[in-house]
């Protein structure tokens, strides 16, 4: 079966827009030559310090990856995998995938991109990405058969290969030169040669201050119009600079004063300031927002008891938490789907425990039943990440109202990250509960939702649920071929996960960006990217 772009992707309006775009580029190319280099100054949600998009899942590093690397496949706005660097063919038995690189792909140093690079990159990716790890268990071989062709052979059916390779977040399939991709997966790369639409200007890179990207003049974009990470990545500016501003107040002032063009995340409470500025557009760029969730540690009492976990879930209510975190109803949604609302697998199976909350009375009853002895809940609160400070504060109050004893410990995010990795008892540096956020594409299926792993101490994500049934269901899901079947299993997984309290989704929110009106045609997708966008002088 050949999977090529279908005509349906080319709606007339898109065609028209593409044509307009092309003529604009041509025009700009003619007239803009002597003018000052066009630069977009952007303040991203965090400073960039790690430049290896495989070793870390940090979003800022992923965004960096989209600037300088190209991905093997892309995903369109209908969540369908599309060709990007390569198109593919799948054998009839569904066990052999043949990827063929398109023409014109070149590394920033001028060398052509080959299938060997692709193989090495996919292998490194396969060591790090959760979904890919699962996939590689079913892989028989991955080889380059010639300069342009890579072949993946499976031992057993795995129906999620293309989706994993095309997914826009988590770890996308950034393709690096073979020499770079051969870096051990535990070691950070130091060679930043990519083949993407921008080149990284290493000389101007100041970790924690700024990163500079210049247009890759040799990049050959695909012909299709851009749709999420698929389609043509046409660069219309000369330079993009990411500036880090440690104080959000300063960043808001700066974008308001026109000193920067783009502020990726505007604090909700400051929206009124920016919304009244006619030179700014304040809008949500990503159609899919964030899921915020609480995780309980199954290893330590009292959350080693499923009844007490359920009591905790009953004690929490999404609305007050979202109110404290977001405040503005326009940007927050109560949502009981672990896969995010508005996604293919979205379901309300089993979500009443959280959606009807807070229910302190029910929680109390359950606590009594479980014989809760007042063991304090060690709740970790990060103090330096704005999007994570509020949830524990409100949750602490809700838990207390339900009869829990809560010891909320404030700490910086890095301490939290360190501490949550500890499987020790609370008295020895362990923990009971913490909150974090995901962008929806990171949780939207049972395969790539990191929490939905019942592997216990060895394999599961922090909190370490030992839940063989969950893993069985997940395998079942991966092997299901029929879409309806997949949905059914996904719902079942969620229902089960709610019953055992794998984790507690406490709602969804979207973060608005502030964009100078000089910038037009930003690609609207879950990842901020700087192709297609134009800057007026």
């Amino acid at each position, binding site marked *: 079966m050949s999977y090529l772009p279908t005509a349906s992707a080319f709606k007339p309006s898109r065609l028209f827009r593409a044509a307009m775009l092309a003529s604009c580029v041509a025009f700009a190319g003619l007239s803009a030559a002597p003018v000052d280099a066009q630069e977009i100054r952007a303040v991203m949600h965090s*400073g960039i*310090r*790690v*430049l290896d998009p495989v*070793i*870390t*899942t*940090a979003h800022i*590093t992923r965004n960096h990856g989209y600037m300088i690397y190209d991905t093997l496949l892309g995903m369109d706005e209908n969540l369908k995998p599309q060709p990007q660097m390569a198109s593919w063919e799948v054998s009839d038995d569904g066990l052999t995938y043949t990827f063929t690189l398109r023409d014109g792909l070149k590394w920033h140093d001028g060398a052509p991109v080959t299938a060997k690079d692709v193989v090495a990159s996919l292998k490194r990716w396969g060591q*790090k990405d*959760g979904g890919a790890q699962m996939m590689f268990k079913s892989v028989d071989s991955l080889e380059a058969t010639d300069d342009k062709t890579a072949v993946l052979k499976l031992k057993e059916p795995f129906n999620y290969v293309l989706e994993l390779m095309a997914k826009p977040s*988590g*770890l996308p399939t950034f393709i690096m030169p073979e020499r770079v991709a051969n870096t*051990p*997966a*535990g*070691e*950070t790369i*130091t060679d930043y040669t990519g083949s993407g639409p921008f080149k990284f200007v290493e000389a101007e*890179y*100041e*970790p*924690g*201050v*700024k990163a500079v990207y210049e247009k890759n003049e040799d990049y050959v974009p695909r012909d299709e119009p851009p749709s999420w990470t698929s389609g043509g990545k046409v660069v219309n500016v000369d330079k993009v600079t990411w*500036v880090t*501003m*440690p*104080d959000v*107040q*300063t*960043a808001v*002032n*700066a974008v*308001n*004063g026109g*000193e920067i063009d783009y502020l990726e995340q505007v604090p909700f409470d400051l929206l009124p300031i920016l919304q009244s500025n006619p030179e700014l557009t304040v809008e949500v760029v990503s159609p899919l927002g964030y899921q915020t969730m609480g995780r309980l540690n199954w290893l330590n009492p009292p959350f080693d008891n499923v009844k007490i976990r359920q009591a905790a879930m009953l004690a929490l209510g999404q609305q007050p938490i979202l109110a404290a975190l977001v405040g503005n109803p326009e940007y927050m949604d109560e949502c009981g789907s672990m896969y995010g609302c508005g996604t293919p697998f979205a379901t309300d199976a089993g979500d009443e425990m959280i959606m009807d909350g807070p229910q302190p009375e029910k929680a109390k009853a359950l606590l009594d039943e479980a014989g809760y002895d007042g063991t304090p809940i060690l709740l970790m609160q990060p103090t*330096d990440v704005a999007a994570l400070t509020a949830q524990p504060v409100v949750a602490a109050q809700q838990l207390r109202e339900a009869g829990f004893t809560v010891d909320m410990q404030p700490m*910086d*995010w*890095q*301490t939290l*990250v*360190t*501490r949550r*990795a500890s499987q020790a008892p609370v008295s020895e*540096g362990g923990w009971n509960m913490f909150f*974090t956020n*995901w962008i929806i594409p990171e949780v939207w299926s049972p395969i790539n939702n*990191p929490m939905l792993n019942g592997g216990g101490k*060895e*394999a599961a*994500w922090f909190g370490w649920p030992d839940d063989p049934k969950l893993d069985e269901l997940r395998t079942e899901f991966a092997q299901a071929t029929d879409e309806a079947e997949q949905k059914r299993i996904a719902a079942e997984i969620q229902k089960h996960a709610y019953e055992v309290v794998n984790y507690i989704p406490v709602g969804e929110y979207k973060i608005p960006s502030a964009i100078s009106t000089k910038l037009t045609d930003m690609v609207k997708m879950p990842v901020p990217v700087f192709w297609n966008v134009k800057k007026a002088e």
Partner: protein
Amino acid sequence: MLAYIIRRILASIPVMIVVALFVFLLLRLTPGDPAAIIAGDMATPAQLEQIRQNLGLNEPLVTQFITWSGQLLSGDFGRSLISKTPVLTLIHQRLEPTLSLAIVTMLFTLLLSIPMGVVAAWRHGTLTDSAIMAISVLGFSIPVFVTGYILIQIFAIDMRVFPIQGFRSIFDGFWPFFERIVLPALTLATIYIALIARMTRAAMLDVLGEDYIRTARAKGLSERIVLFRHALRNAAVPILTVVGTGFALMISGVVVTESVFNLPGLGRLTVDAILARDYPVIQALILLTSGIYVVINLLIDISYAFMDPRIRY
């Protein structure tokens, strides 16, 4: 003099060793794991372990300390654990904004605080004195970030006289540099002004009670000459001392000011490094600031000799 300088430098070696050891132990004996920071949200325990191994964090403490001090002695400060950039490169990138901020702040401070202190001492006990002291202490009483926000609101947002944030090198031209450094330097100066104005006042009060001031007045000299030629020079030593000890105070202000005004300086680098447990960077930076502290105090001690001919080394 040269012998004195050499002796002082030798004497500072144990100080630096104390600093190095202290910082090293503080960092290693407290919880924190750079590997977790590098790996991000989805890392599994095995992956963390792999990164830790790579960073050399699993070595025994003594080995780590020996490796580090060995590198130090050969002038190698190592690389950032997080960004892999050489520490020296990082410091080099961040030095200019901080240096500029410190120098301009010091200029503002001295230009404002010394006349304030002199006048307050001269008019000791009067309303002028109280008013000057109240103003300077008020500056000290407001947290730096609030001062910064207020100045930004007034001068950058409402009046649009200066940019809101950012830094430009002085090599890009004086005005672009100056318009961006004015507000941060003023912000930072508010703490420092209180300190130095008060010290100036106290030192001047001491000196103004001295016999030679009476002598100068008995000679029929004008008050201006009495105050600035006779009194101020004699009051210089304690004032200079405070300028030196105030350096430590300034660092705390620098950290905040750099954040509020988005100056890519060393203060932010340090805070970021601490929060990210970027050990080589923290160690190098604290050694560096301690070294600067030691050097500044040495320079100040040496400058005493120029201020006061009685002091000879």
